[in-house]
């Protein structure tokens, strides 16, 4: 009973993440991999993603402080970030990564800097939303959560 509203809320939240383009089908893949044997898989992966991303973002910031820009290095870092973002289905973040890489390829330092700022914003937004989502999921209870997801 209590959970119903929570579950419903969770479902709505989840759906909006997809609708607003924060997440894509890859996230669903993650969800599908979650099972009884691996009940918190999705969250685990996402937490791992945060940790790794934090490191990459730091590296990127450092690299962007050095002028002139080492586009190869920047591109390499961003490639990495893009890879992990796409693995969890972080759609908007991934798009920003792509944009950033385009700027790198064309040697557009200004564009890179701008794209990076945008990227950080998107990343922060996603992180916030996902954290809220998982928190609600925990409150709603594992079973519920599963149900919600399945729908």
């Amino acid at each position, binding site marked *: 009973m209590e959970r119903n509203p929570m579950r419903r809320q969770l479902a709505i939240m989840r759906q909006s993440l997809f609708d607003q383009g924060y997440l894509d089908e*890859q996230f669903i*893949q*993650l969800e*599908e*991999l979650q099972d009884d044997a*691996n009940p918190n*898989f999705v969250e*685990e*992966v996402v937490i*791992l*993603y945060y*940790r*790794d991303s934090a490191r990459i973002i730091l590296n990127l910031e450092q690299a962007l402080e050095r002028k002139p820009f080492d586009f190869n290095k920047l591109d*390499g870092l961003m*490639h*990495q970030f*893009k*890879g*992990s973002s*796409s*693995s*969890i*289905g972080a759609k908007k973040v991934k798009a920003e990564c792509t944009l950033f890489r385009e700027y790198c390829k064309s040697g557009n330092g200004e564009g890179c800097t701008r794209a990076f700022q945008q990227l950080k914003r998107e990343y922060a937004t996603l992180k916030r939303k996902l954290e809220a989502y998982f928190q609600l999921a925990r409150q709603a209870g594992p079973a519920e959560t599963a149900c919600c997801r399945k729908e």
Partner: protein
Amino acid sequence: MTVERAISEPKDQFPIGMRVLAVDDDPTCLLLLETLLRRCQYNVTTTSQAITALKLLRENKNKFDLVISDVHMPDMDGFKLLEHVGLEMDLPVIMLSANGDTKLVMKGITHGACDYLLKPVRIEELQNIWQHVVRRKKFDRKDGDNSGSQDKPHIDNGGAAGMGGVDQNGKLNKKRKDQNEDEDEEHDENGHDNEDPSTQKKPRVVWSVELHRKFVAAVNQLGIDTEAVPKKILELMNVEKLTRENVASHLQKYRLYLKRISCVANQQANMAAALGSADSNYLRMGPLNGLGTFHTLAGSDQLHNAALRSFPPSGVLGRLNTPAGLGMRGLPSPGMIQLGHVQNSGNTSNDQSKLQSFVIPGNHNANTLQGMPMSLELDQLQNNKGVSHIGELPTAANTTVFPVSGSLMDARISGCSNNPLLGVTSNSLMLEGSSQQTTLHPSNLRDSVSTMGFQNGNTLSDFTSIATASNQLQCSKADLQCQASPTSCNAGQIIRSAPPEWNAPYHSNVMCCSINSSIPVNGAMVPLGQCLDQNNPNFHRNMDLDSIAPSNFVDPISLKRSEGFNSAMEPAVIQKEGYFQPRPQGGYNVGSLEDLASAMMKEGPDTRKLADGDFGCNGYSHRTCI
């Protein structure tokens, strides 16, 4: 039941429990990959470092069936890892990357990846990756003449559903009623690692020179066209642990080889004529993409380009047969040296020296060399083992060639690990009799080859070195090294670039052999040149050589796998006509010998098949250079 199941449906069982090694520096992706793989019921090991991965793989070659690796890694480039694995372990490798650029994918293929997946990886894609393992095994099987049936039961690895090792063993027994090999059983018991179909590393029968000789003797006794049936041959040979299947497939190859030889003979006649002016042909380098490099190498080394040229690949072959000694001897490892290294003129330690110059470009052909200077080198080549035999071969040009080369190859190939180069050194004799050649030798090549797990390749390298006829080779070697393929320089290099290369050279050498030394190793070299192009052995495909030396050349990779058998065969094959289908990879045929090689090589449709396979080598069939 399980037993039944295992036997009858190995495939069903097999993918389950397949042992995968996943390598990715990105922890998120690695975790995801691991989970996906486990979901597919594979047995997964993960590591975030390529170096660790290599260590794990080297520890026990039979521990894994498949490797999946990211392309971009901080400690080692994914392609490099790919090369290492391909060379040393001959396992199928799948590349993974978020970047799907055609260029990158192509790079993956040329480096030998059997597949290239894009991130994020989906489970559907992973559910099918086991095909690469099976395919590879199948190919191996083909080369190795080992019955693959044994493999199937092996499914084991942990995952095997319900199949215990025992079951498998049981099955094996059943399966193998005909087979004498007990190995499978043993393997199963030992833990399917070896035998599992997944690894398919059944001990392959290595057709050493002696073995081959016995085979030929038996066949001749029975009559090649009439009574020579595998069963009888097997009886006559009376070799333990040899199965009818082994003999059957070997016989098939042999037949093809003979056919090829006869074709080649015709061509050779033409070539001989052309020889004089064949420089261009021989050198082919032009056409050969790879060869082009060779040219340079040759030039640099001083390859006797001219010399090489003189050996028109086809001509070479023809000759081989004729001058009894020549044939074999002269064959400068077709693959290898042909190019000019053959220096022939003087190099060969043997009188053949000329032939020797053919010295098959280091590539595995080192064996080929064997064929050539058989007398000489054989001893030297011995190091591989087969070498000694070579001496014997020269006589029978056709047939002998076969064995000889084979032996050489065997020696080499199998010996690859130890130092195929050794063979090379001896080859050097061949090359020009100059000790210098040895310089090329394998040791040098080896270095270049270093990455290659070249075991097989080593031999080749030896050859290549030899081929280069000593001095030049040396020079070239250096060059080669860079390229691994730039066989042009050193026969050794050839090896480097890709073991497969040597296949080609080998072939060419064979052809060259006939040329009496005048024939520049060009032929052999040619392949190298091709190889040069690509640093990866696999790459050589582009070489014209491919055409020349049909698949025969054992892919370096395959070489490794086959336990030298293939590789050995390759060279020998060349002589024989590509008797053995060295895995497609090897196909490195020397361009010059192209004609010959092609004639000879043709035999390897099998190799070609492999080509598609799994490994990137596929393209090799010709390409010795790989």
